């Protein structure tokens, strides 16, 4: 299967007054057609910046400094701003974390949807309106015709996120990047939205990158999982494998810190310490200060290893009988 998106050695840095902040450092991965990939990490690990880098939406002082982002074989980083704009929202769409903030409070839902249709093709206003209405219906918003005239503050958080999803679906993109779209919502609404996105992705054959800090959500949704730590992907593989037999100590640490994943009666084991400040990361493996398995060799940079469809960066991976 040829991947729809291939990210090669991507680095995004922020040039701050106190030094260079390496938000993403040499990240490579691929997303297959119709594949759902979960991108997991703590806040500050660079997972959201990865999403924004793909769409070319990194705000200054941040900048993609090196690498390639091949979308259907074409390097997005080489595109002109105008050409990039024809990709954004049409071929690759994004859903943001906080639905209360993603819609413009002073423009009606209809305006914000219709302008998205009109931005990518010569369509009549009437047709743009009809497509917007259909998209709202698709995501389960009752009486979409009337709701087009409404303003964001008249919707609940869950409904606003549905509107954002409807906007992302308007052009039936090949890839949707969802940046923690359920984090800001109530638990019951979370699962509804989760289910909705999964259904729509399957229905329209869209690939999906699901960014989250919540392993449980990703486990329920994704085909493959990538774990990010301090700007690097430390482990990647099929969901089942990674969650049951993690190779990287950070992944196993994350798993034993999740209440639902730890069997009843066994203590939760939080990872000791804090993630290092992005301005002063230790050389070599950034996790070594918090890692029980670390040795002197970890002061040098671990290279990605690939074994049995699993990729990880560690000198001392967990060994499982099957491996």
């Amino acid at each position, binding site marked *: 299967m040829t991947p729809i998106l291939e990210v090669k050695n991507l680095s995004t840095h922020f040039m701050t007054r106190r030094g260079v902040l390496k938000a993403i450092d040499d990240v490579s991965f691929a997303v297959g057609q119709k594949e759902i990939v979960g991108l997991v990490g703590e806040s500050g690990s660079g997972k959201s910046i990865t999403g924004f880098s793909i769409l070319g939406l990194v705000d200054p002082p941040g900048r993609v400094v090196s690498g390639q982002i091949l979308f259907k074989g074409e390097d997005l980083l080489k595109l002109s701003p105008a050409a990039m704009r024809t990709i954004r929202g049409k071929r690759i769409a994004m859903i943001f974390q906080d639905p209360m903030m993603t819609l413009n409070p*002073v423009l009606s839902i209809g305006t914000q949807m219709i302008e998205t249709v009109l931005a990518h093709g010569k369509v009549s206003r009437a047709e743009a309106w009809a497509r917007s209405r259909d998209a709202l219906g698709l995501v389960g918003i009752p009486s979409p015709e009337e709701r087009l005239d409404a*303003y964001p*503050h008249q919707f609940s958080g869950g409904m606003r996120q549905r509107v954002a999803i409807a906007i992302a679906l308007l052009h039936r993109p090949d890839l949707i990047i969802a940046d923690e779209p359920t984090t800001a919502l109530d638990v019951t609404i979370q699962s509804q939205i989760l289910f909705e996105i999964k259904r729509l992705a399957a229905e329209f054959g869209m690939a999906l990158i699901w960014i989250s800090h919540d392993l449980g959500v990703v486990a329920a949704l994704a085909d493959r999982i990538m774990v990010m730590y301090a700007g690097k992907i430390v482990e990647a593989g099929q969901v089942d494998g990674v969650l049951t037999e993690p190779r990287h100590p950070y992944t196993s640490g994350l798993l034993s810190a999740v209440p639902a994943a730890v069997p009843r009666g066994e203590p939760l084991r939080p990872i000791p310490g804090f993630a290092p400040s992005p301005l002063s990361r230790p050389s070599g493996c950034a996790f070594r200060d918090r890692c029980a398995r670390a040795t002197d060799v970890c002061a040098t940079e671990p290279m990605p290893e690939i074994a049995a469809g699993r990729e990880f960066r560690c000198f001392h991976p967990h060994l499982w009988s099957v491996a």
Partner: protein
Amino acid sequence: MTVFVIRRFLQSIAVLLVTAIIVFIGIYAIGDPIEMLISPDASPAERAQVITSLGLDKPLWQQFLTFAWNALHGDLGRSFVFNRPSISLIFERLPATLELTLTGLVFALVLGIPLGLLSGLKPNSATDEAIMTGSIFGFSLPSFWQGMMLIMIFSVWLGWLPSTGRGQMGEFLGIRSSLFTLDGLAHLILPAINLSLFKLSLVIRLTRTGVRETMPLDFVKFARAKGLSEKRIVFVHVFKNILVPLITVVGLELGSMLAFAVVTETIFAWPGIGKLLIDSIMRLDRPVVVAYLLVIVSLFIFINFVVDVLYSLVDPRVRLGDAQ
């Protein structure tokens, strides 16, 4: 919406009442109303007549009722100097002041918004730095001195523009204004610039702050992620959000410009209510001063009311507030 307008209207009335009380106290309780409101050259008979008509021999609260009653009927006393009702003197000169103020406001907006956008979209660039320093300079310039310098340069040295008066007036749609003749326009330019410069700085800063606060918001990024053009993002998404605070402040500043017109009118001998006020203060023509204060405060409160209603039209959160 209706509820909002009614509530806002009642508030305006309350503020007006409070101000009327303050002005009343200023004249009747702190000062000596006989000295303030009766011409020094009045005969004893005239004095007695005014004292009874104003009820100055009655208790203070009754005096206030008389004052308020008269004010409601547009009777704010007679000018000593012109021997005419002071309110009609004010209304005669009001159009000149409004013409000047509105022209100044338009100047400030037409120049200020683009400069503020320019500055806010490229924060900390050389352009931004220059515009911002310029705007600090703008509001540091004492407006009366700035007006004098305009006269010195453009009237005295270069001789390009007239420096006093309103010039010839034209009539259009029944409105007489300097805006409709070339001579009138020439007379209007310097005073309008003088009045607008101070507000220009404010408009620039407001627009810039608005842009800078709005640009990093998620909905702007989301608009980019939708593939909208930068033009649409700035002029529709960002601008409509800035419009709310801009309308509020600019509306309020219209009132302050009306007050500042006193300075401009004095310098450029513009025959508006501001010049009338200063002349009346100098001639101790106090009924006119009192009338000016009440009229300008009413005008000011009226403007605030209109601004709030406009504001609610722009911001759906306010407009639809009572539907929730």
